[in-house]
């Protein structure tokens, strides 16, 4: 299993590329945990590129999004749907978004 620990704020495709490139191990066939315990906010383009690099290009077996807030869960879910890999992404221990207005 591989783990990507996200920093507090993530945005942009280059940042997703850098985090995936830093993985130590073979992505193809692996389960990848995306650890969002420290994540405060993430952009849709980051989520889209992360899904692309891990599942579409990298052929990971499965991506598990751990402890993400609702907005990032939604961004990852939409990215997976757009790229046809919805069945390969699961969400565990989602965090509530701070109180709404």
């Amino acid at each position, binding site marked *: 299993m591989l783990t990507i620990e996200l920093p507090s704020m993530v*945005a942009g495709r280059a940042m997703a590329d850098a985090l995936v490139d830093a993985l130590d191990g073979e992505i193809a066939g692996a389960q990848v945990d995306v650890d969002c315990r420290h994540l405060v*906010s993430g*952009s849709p*383009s980051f989520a889209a590129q992360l899904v692309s690099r891990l599942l579409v290009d990298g052929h990971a077996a499965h991506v598990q999004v751990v402890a993400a*807030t609702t907005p990032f869960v939604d961004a990852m879910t939409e*990215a997976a749907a*757009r790229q046809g890999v919805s069945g390969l992404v699961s969400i565990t221990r989602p965090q509530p978004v701070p109180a709404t*207005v």
Partner: protein
Amino acid sequence: MTAPPPNPPSLGHLVCRPDATGVHVVDLSRCRWIDPAQLVGTAAIARRHAAAGLALRVLGPVREAQRRYATRLHLGQVLTALDVEHDLVDVDELDRRRDLLEVRHVATEDDARALGELVHARAARDDRGAAQALFAGVVEMALNVADHSGTVGYVAAQTLPSSGWVRFAVADGGVGLLDTLTGRGARTHRQALHLALDGTSRFTDPSRGAGLSGTVREVGRRRGFLYVASGTAAVRASATARDDRRLRAAFPGTLVEGVVGMRGPVSEPAPLRATEGPSRGDRRRR
């Protein structure tokens, strides 16, 4: 937070008209209010003229409060850096907490991320949820500039303390959405706006194009919306509806304003010398 959201920006003052000597003029002198969209729109037009080697003059607002606001948000500094003639002079920097973000340029992904983090840091002291939406909105719209416009863009943000809203604006004087999406079937500015909001990118890669639709979703969590203008078309998009507008004069490039609701009143700023910007009941709530 009970006040209605501010109305979309009025872009009519951003029309460029030649004066008697042939120099193009952006005339903000009669503006009754100035908001971030007008500031970044002016900066984007100025950048476009500078890049083309065309002379431009910007006339600042006559009203003192609006003049001070435009200057305090560094529009004059941006114009000076572009060698654009203007009549905005520096003012004392008073308490600027509700300004949130003065006019800043964005050209790269690193710029976009830095601006998003800065806005988040400044907004999070009042409302962490709104700050999250602001980060996603500012950074994603700024990334669009870096990815698609082919030029430098500008970002600004402002809180509206009495009504509990915050808004940000991003503009570039680049190719515009119609040129960007002609290859994907857009034939009019309006079509291009809707294609972009539907998630269509100039790239066929399905991992591209989520920026605008994702940002509408993010600001929608906070009762907000996006106002997107390009060419002669504009759309106000919320999580549940879109409202088409037609601009009387084309905006040369793309301009986006996002509005996000705050949980409650923001930190009360120190008293200002005069009524600044849109603060008198947040004038934009017409």
